[in-house]
């Protein structure tokens, strides 16, 4: 193996390690006692040092060496983690990254001053006396059980009429927390009856509560003194199992055992489920015995304790994945072609023929779904990486900001994640720069000094929603409008709705920053955000309230590659309307058509008037039928807005493999892309969100 290839491998490997390292370091700041994480970070640095040395990159190896030493000290608990150390490690990570980049781009700048500074700082930490035994003990104490502590498992099978006595189960837990550390609470939902048998005033809960306390068992029993008559209460000491704070027995146990022990399900439920020979958690959650979250939680804990000894995953070159995806896409097209033939040639006697094709159809759909899943990755890592951004920027601007992350397990197409990271970064920067106020200002407004930015992701109706929410100053409508008029983006006479005014911050050349900062306020950024999102066939909305904050809501398709669509025909042209945009098909009666001044043609659909969009005039083509009462009207919707599309003919539902118009041709307003139909014809995929905007103009 030549030196060249060795360096290639090193660069590739270190890029991966550095990426993980950043996430791990940020995580470590929040969980400074996570020994496992410290070990992982140490190993990452160690690998970097080793590989760099092996490749002959002594500069890098020497530099990493210091960081490794510091981590070693942290690992031995002789150095305590604090803000400075994390900052230093993060900065050294950046230096290593720059050094690695410099290997192939000699012009790439590595801040030598910084290298010296960091190395010096590391030396300082290394020579610092073995620090702060007291603090270390405290950490240990919090995590581990002290001599006097006992752990109890309390199982409460609450009586159906508990509420009638006026007892609140939450009150019991609160009372426990007066003198106990409540370690965990699990709820067994299996007693909840079907809805028609359910007494809304009844209590169907079985709680299993784990508490740690130095108080007596008697004290614990006293909590339940009034409910012990009619409710089943078991209190059992389980201190032995919790020697190191974590339940040591988890590692060897089966998921089912743990679920029973935690009181989330009964043993019978497990036995019943086992008969089906499937994964226990899945079955139980399907039956409504436990919630999916509960299973995930215990499985997650179990995995953590098991220490992921064997990872059953392999790395696949993204290129291979792309190829797989392409072949899949071609298969979908061929399938559409076969489908046309099947329905063309089959007659009623040959139903077997159709059944067999349906089978193939189903298999292909399954296969496609599986392949799509391979491309799906959780958005968590991308989110967590922003913690660094928030951490560094808020410090620089003297602001105090907490970043909260929700729905990090939400999965998105890998391509989308890669392309959404940048726009998200800009939005978060925008929230930090313009949204969150300085701590003093916030206090004057009666808010918490610490501002909050929440990043969340979730699935909704075949789309992914990502939200960036801040609790800052909110957008100032008048200020934005003044600015936009000054910059000549809008005219003074324009009558704009609030929504449209907020959207102006996405206009090219717009920036309301009082001071131009390093990161935002250059007037680029937010306009790039919108165009990037639109390129992903997504939309971005803003809602804001003065002094309460701003919410950016991004809506993205699950995948860019394939959509479910309805093929339609206007004149000689074929179009695809995405299925999730279709509301209904109608054939309006003559009396339901009207022309309204300022709005143009409208169709009355069940007491609502909806604008009529003639696709033939929109795209300047010849239609077969221009009379809406004879043609077909498709009601489409997006984000609560509707329009009626006038089309000649409906060809049928099909999956469309999206080919980007921009890559192959040029951007056309109102088109999301093109696809090939089963008969070999090309069809344009309509971008409903843009068409509605065009229609309402």
């Amino acid at each position, binding site marked *: 193996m030549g030196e060249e290839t060795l360096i290639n491998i090193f660069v590739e490997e270190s890029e991966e390690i550095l990426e993980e390292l950043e996430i791990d370091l940020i995580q470590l700041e929040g969980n400074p006692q996570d020994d496992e994480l410290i070990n992982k970070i140490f190993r990452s640095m160690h690998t970097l040092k080793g590989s760099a040395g092996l490749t002959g990159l002594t500069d890098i190896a020497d530099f990493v060496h210091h960081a490794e030493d510091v981590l070693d000290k942290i690992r031995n608990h002789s150095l305590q983690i604090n803000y400075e150390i994390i900052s230093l490690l993060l900065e050294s990570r950046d230096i290593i990254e720059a050094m690695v980049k410099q290997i192939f781009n000699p012009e790439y700048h590595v801040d030598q001053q910084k290298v010296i500074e960091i190395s010096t700082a590391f030396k300082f930490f290394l020579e610092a006396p073995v620090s702060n035994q007291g603090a270390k003990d405290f950490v240990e104490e919090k995590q581990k059980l002290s001599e006097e502590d006992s752990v109890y498992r309390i199982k409460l099978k609450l009586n159906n009429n508990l509420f*009638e*006595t*006026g*007892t609140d189960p939450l*009150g019991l837990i609160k*009372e426990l927390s007066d003198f106990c550390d409540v370690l965990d609470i699990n709820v067994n939902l299996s007693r909840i009856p079907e809805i028609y048998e359910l007494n809304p005033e009844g209590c169907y809960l079985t709680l299993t509560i784990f508490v740690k306390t130095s108080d007596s068992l008697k004290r614990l029993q006293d*909590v339940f003194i*009034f409910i012990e*008559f009619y409710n089943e209460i078991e209190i059992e000491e389980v201190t032995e199992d919790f020697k190191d704070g974590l339940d040591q027995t988890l590692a060897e146990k089966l998921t089912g055992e743990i679920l029973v022990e935690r009181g989330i399900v009964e043993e019978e439920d497990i036995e019943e489920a086992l008969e089906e020979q499937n994964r226990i958690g899945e079955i139980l959650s399907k039956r409504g015995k436990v919630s999916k979250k509960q299973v995930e939680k215990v499985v997650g804990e179990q995995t953590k304790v098991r220490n992921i000894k064997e990872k059953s995953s392999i790395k696949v070159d993204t290129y291979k994945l792309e190829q797989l995806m392409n072949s899949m896409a071609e298969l979908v097209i061929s399938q559409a072609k076969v489908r046309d033939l099947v329905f063309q040639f089959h007659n009623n006697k040959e139903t077997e023929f159709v059944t067999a094709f349906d089978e193939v159809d189903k298999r292909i759909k399954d296969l496609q779904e599986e392949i799509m899943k391979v491309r799906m990755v959780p958005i968590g890592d991308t989110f967590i990486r922003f913690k660094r951004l928030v951490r560094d920027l808020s410090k620089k601007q003297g602001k105090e900001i907490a970043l909260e992350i929700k729905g990090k397990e939400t999965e998105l197409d890998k391509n989308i994640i890669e392309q959404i990271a940048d726009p998200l970064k800009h939005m978060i920067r925008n929230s930090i720069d313009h949204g969150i106020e300085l701590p003093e200002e916030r206090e004057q407004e009666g808010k918490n000094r610490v501002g909050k930015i929440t990043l969340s992701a979730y699935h909704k109706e075949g789309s992914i929603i990502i939200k960036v929410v801040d609790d800052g100053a909110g957008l100032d409508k008048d200020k934005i409008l003044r600015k936009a008029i000054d910059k000549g983006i809008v005219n003074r006479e324009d009558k704009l709705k609030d929504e449209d005014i907020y959207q102006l911050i996405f206009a090219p050349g717009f920036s309301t920053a009082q001071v131009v900062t390093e990161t935002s306020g250059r007037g680029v950024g937010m306009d790039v955000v919108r165009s990037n999102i639109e390129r992903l066939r997504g939309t971005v909305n803003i809602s804001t309230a003065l002094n309460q904050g701003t919410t950016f809501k991004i809506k993205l398709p699950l995948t860019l590659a394939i959509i479910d669509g309805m093929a339609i025909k206007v004149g000689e042209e074929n179009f695809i309307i995405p299925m999730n945009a279709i509301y209904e098909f109608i054939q309006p009666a003559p009396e339901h058509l009207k022309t309204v001044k300022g709005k143009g043609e409208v169709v009355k659909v069940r007491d609502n008037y909806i604008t009529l969009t003639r696709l033939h005039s929109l795209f300047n083509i010849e239609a077969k039928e221009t009379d809406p009462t004879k043609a077909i009207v498709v009601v489409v919707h997006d984000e609560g807005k509707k329009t009626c599309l006038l089309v000649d003919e409906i060809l049928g539902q099909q999956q469309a493999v999206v080919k980007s118009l921009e890559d192959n041709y040029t951007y056309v307003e109102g088109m999301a892309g093109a696809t090939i139909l089963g008969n070999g014809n090309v069809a344009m995929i309509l971008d409903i969100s843009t068409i509605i905007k065009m229609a309402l103009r």
Partner: protein
Amino acid sequence: MAKKILVVDDSRTVRSSVKYTLEKEGYEVILAEDGRDGLEKLEDNSSITDRPKMIITDVNMPNMDGITFTSEVKKNRNFKFVPVLILTTESQDKMKLKGKEAGAAGWLVKPFSPEQLIGVVKKFVR
């Protein structure tokens, strides 16, 4: 807003000492002299914002005893979820069970200390 507690007892000494102890803890206390009076006081305080968060009642009282009072409370749609604490004496151990059957949430054995009273009340009204 202070949390409201209804105290029903025919003894003025008990009423005023319980009232004193509870008010010192920041609760608002309304008083009734027997079960019937208790039901009337509840009617006066039946809107959702006025309702007491807890009821403490003696057992042996003229006009209407505490057990009947408790079961009447539990029959009333507005108050069925309000916890009732009955005050018993050492000699009335059976009363605990009777109270439970009538729907009481708990009991307190007389004589009790202010700390014991507060401890039990806090089980129900935090």
